[in-house]
């Protein structure tokens, strides 16, 4: 932890790596966002790009208007919640597919609307460009990531977290035991939207030019978030983190070697993981832990007992 804080202060890691790290933070946030609604609650959100993109826009315009970045990010994230309410209330009452369709439709609709309103690239004030210091982006990103991870940790252990997992495992059973599944699903979506909003805010701070609005509202973001979570392990605290690291590193390697084809490779990877390693990397870690504990127990007992 200390390493993460001190190293960039002391050493000059170079803009390349710093860029990657900030990108990593953004991915981690987006992945955690999807993880809340998709991993813990089991509701598949296909429109997370909409939350992300809106937050980017709002943060950008507020910041450019002179409002300090942190306030902009927070306000943008809160307004993302409004979007979540609009789409969540009708769709979360019904079976999962309606939610998936609804979010997908929302993402597409917003992309279309934005493309029509802003059909040119979006630029920033010159003085902001001059004052650009990657370290500020890094620390903002890091701080938000840490706060979010801590928050998710507490959510996981809380009554809310348990309810969400119950909903994911068997929604009917949860309902029957008196859990207000609708309320919890909505709360989950709002939290998810907020975190996605934070990711968008960091992005707006990080990237100063947006060439096309599809850059920020595009399906790529949704796919990256889902992929990071699935590869890392859905419904776990660190899964999205590992998945994002994996994604960023692999993405970097691929963009050097494969060019356009790297996206295709990710698609294959995604499918392979879904088919053969549905628990993701964290699943592997858990298996490993289990294996170690049974192995060490066996070497203590004469009669190794299976659980």
């Amino acid at each position: 932890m200390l390493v993460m804080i001190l190293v960039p202060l002391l050493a000059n890691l170079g803009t390349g790596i710093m860029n990657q790290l900030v990108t990593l933070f953004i991915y981690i946030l987006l992945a955690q966002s999807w993880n809340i609604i998709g991993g813990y609650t089991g509701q598949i959100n296909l429109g997370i790009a909409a939350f992300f993109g809106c937050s980017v826009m709002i943060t950008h315009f507020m910041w450019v208007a002179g409002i300090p970045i942190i306030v902009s990010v927070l306000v943008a994230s809160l307004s993302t919640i409004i979007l979540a309410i609009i789409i969540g209330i009708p769709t979360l009452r019904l079976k999962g597919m309606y939610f998936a369709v609804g979010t997908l439709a929302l993402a597409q609709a917003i992309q279309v609307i934005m493309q029509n309103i802003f059909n040119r690239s979006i630029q920033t004030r010159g003085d902001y460009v001059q004052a650009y210091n990657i370290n500020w982006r890094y620390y903002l990103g890091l701080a938000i990531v840490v706060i979010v991870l801590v928050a998710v940790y507490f959510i996981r252990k809380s009554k809310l977290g348990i309810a969400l997992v119950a909903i994911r495992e068997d929604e009917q059973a949860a309902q029957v035991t008196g859990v207000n599944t609708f309320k919890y699903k909505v709360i989950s979506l709002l939290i998810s939207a907020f975190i996605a909003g934070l990711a968008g805010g960091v992005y707006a701070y990080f990237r100063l030019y947006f060439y096309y609005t599809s850059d920020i509202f595009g399906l790529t973001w949704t796919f990256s978030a889902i992929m990071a979570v699935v590869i890392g392990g859905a419904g776990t605290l660190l899964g999205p983190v590992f998945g994002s690291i994996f994604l960023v590193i692999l993405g970097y390697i691929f963009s050097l070697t494969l060019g356009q084809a790297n996206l295709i490779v990710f698609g294959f990877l995604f499918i392979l993981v879904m088919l053969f390693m549905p628990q993701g990397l964290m699943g592997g870690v858990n298996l490993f832990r289990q294996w170690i504990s049974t192995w060490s127990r066996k070497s203590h007992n004469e009669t190794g007992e299976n659980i």
Partner: protein
Amino acid sequence: MADAFQVLLIGVVVGALYGLVALGFGLIMRIMKFINIAQGSFIILGGFICYWLVTIWHFDPYLSIPIVMLAMFIVGLILYRLLFSPLLKYPQAEMRLDKSLLITFGVVWILDNLEILIWTPNSRSVIPSYGYGTINIFGASLSYTGIIGLGLAILAAAVLHIILTRTYFGKHVRAATEDAVAAGLSGVNVQRTYLISCGIAVALSGLAGTVIVTSYSVTPGGGMSWLLTAMVVVTLAGSDNMNFMIPAGIILGVIQSASTLFISPAYQQPIALIIFLIIILFRPQGLFSKRVRVH
């Protein structure tokens, strides 16, 4: 008045196409409880196959349909074999829906980017030799390609209906849809039935692709928006009966088209979203479904 009629006509033609896409999507969803998000990408693929058949071998686009449909049928078989049949180990519908959603999302990714890589991100379209002609009905004009598209959509729906009600295969499909275990116990090879149904569903997307490439254009990545509309149509129709797909599609098409009288055509996608939200708020079982679903 002619304006309104023109709008209606456009709506019907586009709507029938929506219905055709919904037919393929709904088939997989209803029969096997899988969600095929890649249906849209398959449409684009079908369109591209048609495009190349026309451009390189100078086929008439409508004559290329059997080839396109056959190719897409095979794609459907592969899709089922590789990606859907492993999901059969989850007997609960919810898990199957979720997992298939995610997996086909990956397929979209692969297909779309592969198409961009191989064929560039440009749009393609195909104009048959008689394509620019239109006929005149009550002062509104309807293009030949539009009429043919409409006809093909209705024909496909009719053929599907006949298959489902009159053939052995169709009865196997319906039995497996109602109770897959009981169907197996009665001697139906459920896996093979699913396999062929998946092939048919993707072949339908190939058909839609040829209509789209002749009437509009295909662009890599453009499939999502067709898919979305298909999902809205399926929700509108209620997933009970395949027969209502085309009518529901037409209704959506007409509403969308009518909306262009008031707002810019660019905003038609959001209109579909709004309709979707309205339907699920007030009548989630769809317009035509008799059963009221308990949630």
